[in-house]
């Protein structure tokens, strides 16, 4: 109707002329049928409004409910973890049951060593594969590798543990930090591959073309121009991957085993924070439970610090782009 009214006059009269003719015959007041229809419509409008309000508030409640678990977990971590977080926790070795005090010095160092060794394995392969995916965008192999790395990314971490155990623990006959590092490094590869690819893709084509036009060879363009420009993004991806493997426990059960003593050797079983938390949480002793909470608080803090560093690296990148 609104559309008709907007049209030029000549057109409107020709179209609506037959419709106007019977109008005077109709009574001015609405018939019963019309009234019933109007009431029904009014009812649906009201119902639609109510349904709308109910569903939107349900969505709002879902948002609140989804943030609650995190707040609860952080609250309990702070409350129960902070009481046993003494300096001794960072400097002392684990003590047997019954002896007060004791810390997780070896487990903290062990976790840092594992993260470092895993990165040494996972970083080059992951970044290299990501570069390949970005440089060979349309190739069939690139598509296959991208798909496989996504699938690999979703595999349970325990499977990686079995893989490292089968090839690095079983033949040697004893558990080792190296096997754990391989399992964790293998987990890092698919994560890094995808973030590196995304970051490299963000590098403007013009930059690459400018380098090539100046006579740079492809490999030099790739390494000195593209990787350097995407650098902070790749660093962020690497830090996120490190944060994700820092708390992994399942693969370590099959490879690293845990160690009550001081060890920094890659060939020996090594202590790790997540393993220690697991052992202490399962135990029936109160003082070990307290240590487990403290360990969890330290582990979360470590992960958050790495995460904040990752955010910082990204912000710097955007700052550089803004200039």
């Amino acid at each position, binding site marked *: 109707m609104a559309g008709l009214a907007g049209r030029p006059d000549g057109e409107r009269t020709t179209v609506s002329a037959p419709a106007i003719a019977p109008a005077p015959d109709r009574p001015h007041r609405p018939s019963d049928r019309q009234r019933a229809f109007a009431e029904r419509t009014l009812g649906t409008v009201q119902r639609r409004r109510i349904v709308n309000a109910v*569903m939107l508030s349900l969505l709002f409640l879902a948002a609140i409910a989804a*943030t609650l678990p995190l707040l609860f977990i952080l609250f309990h971590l702070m409350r129960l973890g902070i009481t046993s977080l003494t300096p001794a926790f960072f400097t002392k070795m684990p003590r047997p049951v019954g002896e007060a005090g004791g810390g997780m010095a070896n487990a903290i160092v062990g976790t840092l060593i594992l993260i470092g060794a895993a990165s040494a394995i996972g970083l080059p392969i992951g970044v*290299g594969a990501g570069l390949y995916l970005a440089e060979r965008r349309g190739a069939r192999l690139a598509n296959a590798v991208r798909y496989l790395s996504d699938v690999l990314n*979703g595999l*349970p971490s325990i499977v990686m543990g079995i893989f490292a155990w*089968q090839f690095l623990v079983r033949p040697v006959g004893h558990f080792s930090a190296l096997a754990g590092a391989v399992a964790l490094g293998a987990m890092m590869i698919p994560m890094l591959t995808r973030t590196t690819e995304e970051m490299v893709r963000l590098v403007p084509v013009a930059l690459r073309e400018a380098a090539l036009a100046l006579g740079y060879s492809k490999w030099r363009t790739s390494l000195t121009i593209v990787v350097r420009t995407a650098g902070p993004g790749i660093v962020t991806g690497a830090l996120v991957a490190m944060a994700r493997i820092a708390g992994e426990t399942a693969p370590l059960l099959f490879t690293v085993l845990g160690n009550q003593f001081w060890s920094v050797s890659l060939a020996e079983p090594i202590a790790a924070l997540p393993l220690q938390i697991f052992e202490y949480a399962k135990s029936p002793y109160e003082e070990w439970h307290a240590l487990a909470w403290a360990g*969890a608080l330290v582990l979360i803090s470590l992960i958050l610090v790495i995460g904040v560093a990752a955010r910082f690296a990204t912000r710097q990148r955007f700052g550089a782009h803004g200039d």
Partner: protein
Amino acid sequence: MSEGDGAAVIANGDDAPRPLRIVGSAIADRVYTWVLTAFALCIPALLLLLVIALGLAGWPAFRRFGFAFLTSSTWNPVAGIYGAAPAIYGTVVTSIIALIVATPLGVGVALFLSDLAPRRVRQPVAFLVDLLAAIPSVVYGLWGIFVLLPFLRETLMPFLRDTLGLGGTVFFSGPAYGPSMLAAGLILAVMVLPYISAISREVLLAVPRSQREAALALGATRWEMIRGAVIPYAKSGIIGGIILGLGRALGETMAVTMLIGNRHEISASLLAPGYTMASLIANEFAEASSDLHLSALMAVGLTLFVITMIVNGIARWLVWQVGRTGSGRP
């Protein structure tokens, strides 16, 4: 190639060392490509090695018990009889609980963030939900043992069983000790929530504005817009996200091991303890006495691997499909 031609032209000129350098860099280019290709090939190779490792480790058990390994419910290390049915059952049940709880929450948050939340709220809420993914499994387990289990034992389970009167049904009968498939399923729900919500949010944000505006212009309320225009557009992506969450739930190990009670039995009651495939491997690996026991555990690992491979393959394909058709449309 073109640089090679250029080198040939320059080589005829006076300056002799330059073409050598360009030819050298062409070779370097090729080497560089090979190196990158080699790195990329590491990924299929890793997958292949995974298959080989699990196959080698699990083969003895599969050869001994055949297909019955997956259907038998007897797990008796003393007698040397192994069947993985209870673990498979527990895995399925806990994952279903997790998805039933996490799907409405995850999709709800995603919808709230994409269509309702003011810009100022969006960032912090998304950050808080994403942070759930950063918490290690073992910390979830710790929290579960000391906070969730007492709550379930003293509040939720009696409430479900007695106050709501669900104790009469098969699903909520029996004593409520705490460690149970329900506890494991609930912690899994919290753990997969960030994955479902992150993917859903991504897909929902990809729904074009015009789609929403068209619905509103037709007189739809906001909910009708969401139901009629936004969700159908993003449907297969959301399903992909849910299946991806399923993949996570199937393979989650530590938190489940700490909360499920670790018992080989198939019970209809959610209040009863059970086992999942991953928790079975993690729990019995250290005490595996014989080679056959070890091999049976690895065979469970192989089963888990195959199932998650299939689930992930389907999920990735669905998400990828949305990305393709989504960008194809205006």
